[in-house]
């Protein structure tokens, strides 16, 4: 079977975004997995230093949309897309973009905590080491800073030699956040980061998201409506691969424009 190649639309100079206040812009995105169309003509803009939530029933395309921003769909067999994703005005699917460089700017936290089977220190240092950084002091400084920013450093009493897999699920997830922070991205993508965690651990992650948005642009996929309401500034509701409604979270949750959004949020379907 031949793997269909993703269609990369070249960015022309005139298409570079003039409105610099948007960190991420998705323009007329279609995504296909083989014959199946997972995303149908979605366009949306994400402002810097905001938290944007993607909500919608399972299979609506919200994870696919999220994973477009760091090109994690590239490895999926049969993946193909149309449209452009602009990061700071530059198309990340342009042929000149190195995907490894892109992912240093766009970090990701996954649904299930996925620390490496190494020490806490080595987990956080990994992103730096693969960049070829050898300066031990620099790495240690960055690791400590990242663990502190992920509110994990005090909990482990600074014992960074401990095996990452010995941490609790919630701690593991914050370790994964610290690991992403260590590379100094400007955007953090979170794919249902609390779905495998208990309510208290989830609460800690939500608090952390609140703190992180000062410095980072955060996009979060969530199944938990209350969570979307609590942590996000903007909410996008997706259904069957389409963007049904996108706007201020307060407005979406209290006075949505579309009936379908209303029905989903109030739990009448989904």
């Amino acid at each position, binding site marked *: 079977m031949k793997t269909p190649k993703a269609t990369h639309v070249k960015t022309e100079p005139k298409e570079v975004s003039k409105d610099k206040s948007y960190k991420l812009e998705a323009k007329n995105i279609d995504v296909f997995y083989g014959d199946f169309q997972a995303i149908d003509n979605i366009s949306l803009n994400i402002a810097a230093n905001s938290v944007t939530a993607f909500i919608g029933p399972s299979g609506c395309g919200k994870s696919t949309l999220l994973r477009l921003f760091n090109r*994690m769909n590239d490895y999926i067999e049969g993946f193909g897309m149309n449209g452009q994703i602009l990061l700071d005005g530059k198309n990340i699917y342009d042929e000149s973009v190195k995907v490894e460089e892109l992912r240093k700017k766009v*970090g*990701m936290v*996954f649904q299930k905590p996925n620390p490496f*089977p190494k020490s806490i220190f080595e987990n956080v240092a990994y992103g730096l*080491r*693969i960049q070829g950084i050898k300066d031990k002091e620099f790495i240690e400084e960055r690791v400590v800073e990242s663990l502190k920013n992920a509110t994990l450093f005090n909990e482990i009493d600074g014992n960074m030699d401990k095996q990452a*897999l010995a941490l609790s699920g919630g701690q593991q997830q914050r370790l994964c956040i610290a*690991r992403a922070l260590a590379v100094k991205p400007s955007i953090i993508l979170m794919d249902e980061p609390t779905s495998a965690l208990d309510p208290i651990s989830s609460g800690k992650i939500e608090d952390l998201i609140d703190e992180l948005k000062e410095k980072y642009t955060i996009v979060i996929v969530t199944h938990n409506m209350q969570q979307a309401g609590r942590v996000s500034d903007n909410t996008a509701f997706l259904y069957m691969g389409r963007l049904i409604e996108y706007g201020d979270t307060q407005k979406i949750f209290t006075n949505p424009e579309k009936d379908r959004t209303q029905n989903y949020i109030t739990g009448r379907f989904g």
Partner: protein
Amino acid sequence: MSKSNSGSINDKIFKGLGITATVSCLLILVVFLGFILVQGLERLSWEFLMSLPSRFAEDAGIYTAWIGTLWIFIITALVSFPLGVGAGIYLQEYGKDSKLNKLLEINIANLAGVPSVIYGLLGLEVFVRIMQMGNSILAGALTLSLLILPVIIVATREAIRAVPSSVKDASYALGASKWQTIWKQVLPASFGGILTGVILALSRAVGETAPLVVIGALVYVPFVPQGPLDEFTVLPIQIFNWVTRPQHEFIVNAAAAIIVLLLITFVMNGIAVYLRNRWQKRINW
């Protein structure tokens, strides 16, 4: 009531059958081992290990044979490890679902089932004759490498497949290239499994006789090989040779050599089990 009763009777019968099967397997092994030990243990001595072969049974030793086995083992390991692991990594991580790869996979699976004598014929034609290596250690080691490559490739793929994709995703998401992900995450996590497969395959190679007989390994080598291009013999061939002699003393020699050969393979299997346990303990997904 009667139904649950008959269920429990069936349970007992099946359990009994299972125990019988297990015990009879072990019993055969124990009888065999006992037989060998009784016959050969008293013949086993430092002198036996360090003596050259001789047509007088009491003077004959296995020095050239175990040195030959050592040579074969080392060169086979050096050849088959990088080739097999490399091919396994390619097929598992890089190979797409192309027709060529499907063909390769089917062929590798088939090769694992080819009788070892056939490998001997292949080695005889390709290494001994066409490449003019003669009946040397190198030709023998290359032939055995061919024989165990499919096993190593399959074991490597299995071990790599057991690494959860979430770990690979995490690595990619931090900006790691494919090679960095394989080198720093996939291989360390699967190395225990790979090594186990390689050692088990090598221990099979050490015990092989047929392909080496076919490529012309000698039964009587009155000197110790100095390099990979020298002629050689190995333990299984020496044993085979002694067993075919009519004199009882040579049979005793064979039993003693069998003890040495079994010891070598048991130690290797033990190392494989140890490595597997060590790596499994370290990584608990």
